[in-house]
């Protein structure tokens, strides 16, 4: 409890100062509380300043490297196998869209929502699909999962036996 206080330098104005009538121990507790509150809100920004050396960076423009592989399989087109600078909040579909023109929409199964990459389209009648893996796993949503630094994203044009 801080209490009702008046600044000596600004008579008539209510100011937040330590009440000289507040017991010493309580005064110390309040002071610690105020300092900790300031630090809680200021430290992350201070640390970021130290980290990048340029002051505060906008989260919107943050980029990070991911490894992207695009394999056109039986379609025969030359693929892609290189590092890509992905932006924050980017998903697997947006990432491949940085390299090739894509068409996406409702297709079969959660991992196969790309309809076409660089003109190579899925063929449901022939059981040919674009299949994505993230760090070796197919258990993710190409739309919902956000990429992070160091991820390995692969898109393969596959044909399943039928």
């Amino acid at each position, binding site marked *: 409890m801080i209490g009702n206080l008046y600044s000596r330098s600004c008579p008539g104005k209510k100011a937040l100062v330590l009440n000289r009538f507040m017991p010493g121990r309580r005064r110390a507790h309040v002071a610690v509380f105020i300092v900790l509150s300031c630090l809680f809100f200021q430290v992350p920004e201070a640390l970021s300043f130290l980290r990048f050396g340029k002051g505060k960076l906008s989260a919107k423009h943050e980029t990070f490297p991911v490894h992207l592989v695009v394999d056109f399989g039986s379609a025969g087109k030359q693929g892609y196998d290189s590092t890509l600078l992905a932006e924050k909040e980017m998903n697997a579909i947006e990432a491949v869209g940085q390299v090739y023109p894509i068409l996406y*929409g*409702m*297709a*079969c199964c959660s991992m196969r929502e790309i309809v076409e990459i660089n003109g190579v*389209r899925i063929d*449901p*009648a022939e*059981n040919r699909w674009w299949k994505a893996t993230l760090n070796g796993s197919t258990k993710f949503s190409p739309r919902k999962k956000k990429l992070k630094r160091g991820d390995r994203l692969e898109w393969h044009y596959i044909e399943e*036996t*039928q």
Partner: protein
Amino acid sequence: MALYRRNAVRFLAVLAVLVFSGHAAAYDFEGTVRVSGPPYPDPRFIPIEKKPVRGFPENVLSQSLLISPEGGLQNAVVVLEGGAADVLAGPSEIVPPQMELDQKDYLFDPHVVVLPAGASLKILNSDGLAHDVRAFNEDSKMLFRYDVDPGKSVEALFEKPGNCVLRCGLHHWMHAFVIVVSSPHYAVTDAHGGFRIEDVPPGNYAVRIWHEILGESGTAIEMMDSVRNFEYTYPSEIR
């Protein structure tokens, strides 16, 4: 002379009644669709790596290309397009019974369904697990998607003519074709490649034959009487 004229008028009147009374001639179109050979390709088996249930076989028989020992092609679609005017259409105004497509033993049954445009298809699930049915048109566009629980069914409407493929999103080997046609005269070949289309009015028709692997082919025919021995052999090599 007057008597002759009167009899001629009576004869023409009877003829007109017979022609326009709805009892117009209707023929049957019957035959076999074959594959060139022998030798004929052996049936293929699809390996199943991720089994849906315990005890599921290691592989399932592919229904994409089924050929009888005599070379008869199963699951080919034969459609007669064109023909006489509607006044001679005869019983084609009869609404066809609703077709059903079942998901049984982790396969679609039947593998090929033909529907007139505007008809609906009842999709059942006789298996113990849910199936995820998705339909795609010839542009690879998804038409609908249904999760069908065990013992349940859904109805899907097919409005426009065209070829649609149905797949289960959970079991990659499961697929079926729905061929939507604008003609009332169609059939699907049986296990021996045989088919029969009944009540075809006289006229000139284009015979369209479709198979999921061998593709589309056709010929022309003039129906002046029932045809019992139509034979068509796919000329191209099987890939």
